[in-house]
């Protein structure tokens, strides 16, 4: 069964600090790894995504680091802000449009002011 394991379950960071969330996957057919951000009462929103042909992708304060050999990837939030407080989900998807997105269990991030 396809699985994406995410850690930690919850994370508390001071304003201005770095938040790091880690994910590991099992299915070597995965070739698309998005991160979603979800605020309470809202649906998930795509934050940033990476394909395994690159080791790092940066968009503003958000960076994905990807280690294909270890089958691991992580989200780094630099200069974390209270507005970043949300639940973050990593996901993986095999190639092909008819293949489903498999989500991790989520990390609840709290950034203290």
């Amino acid at each position, binding site marked *: 069964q396809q699985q994406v394991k995410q850690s930690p379950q919850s994370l508390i960071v001071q304003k201005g600090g770095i938040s790091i969330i880690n994910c590991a996957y099992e299915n070597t057919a995965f070739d698309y790894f998005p991160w979603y951000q979800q605020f309470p009462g809202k649906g*998930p929103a795509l934050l940033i995504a990476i394909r395994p042909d690159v080791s790092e992708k940066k968009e503003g304060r958000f960076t994905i680091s990807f280690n294909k050999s270890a089958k691991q990837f992580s989200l780094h939030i630099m200069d974390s802000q209270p507005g970043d407080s949300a639940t973050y989900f990593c996901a993986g998807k095999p190639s092909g449009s008819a293949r489903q997105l498999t989500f991790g*269990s989520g990390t609840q991030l709290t950034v203290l002011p």
Partner: protein
Amino acid sequence: EAGVAQSPRYKIIEKRQSVAFWCNPISGHATLYWYQQILGQGPKLLIQFQNNGVVDDSQLPKDRFSAERLKGVDSTLKIQPAKLEDSAVYLCASSLDGQGRNGNQPQHFGDGTRLSIL
């Protein structure tokens, strides 16, 4: 552009009753998804439509869940009869075209319907 619209936002029913959820995807989006998100977990795909055809319903409990997208636009998800374990948020998402360059068109989610089973 308008986002994915879902209704109702909340629904409370007793077990063994039936319930239906409605979704209107972003205009022009060919692919529509229904997810179940249980509290404290990530979304789990129930069914994926490409236009009005089913692409993947492997995780849909077909003995009680059904979904349709008759005209390739709006969709409804029905549960009959509901069980206690169906308490969850039901999310609808759409993407421009699941047949994109590498099949990885971003999925845009609605805010979901929170279902509570008493």
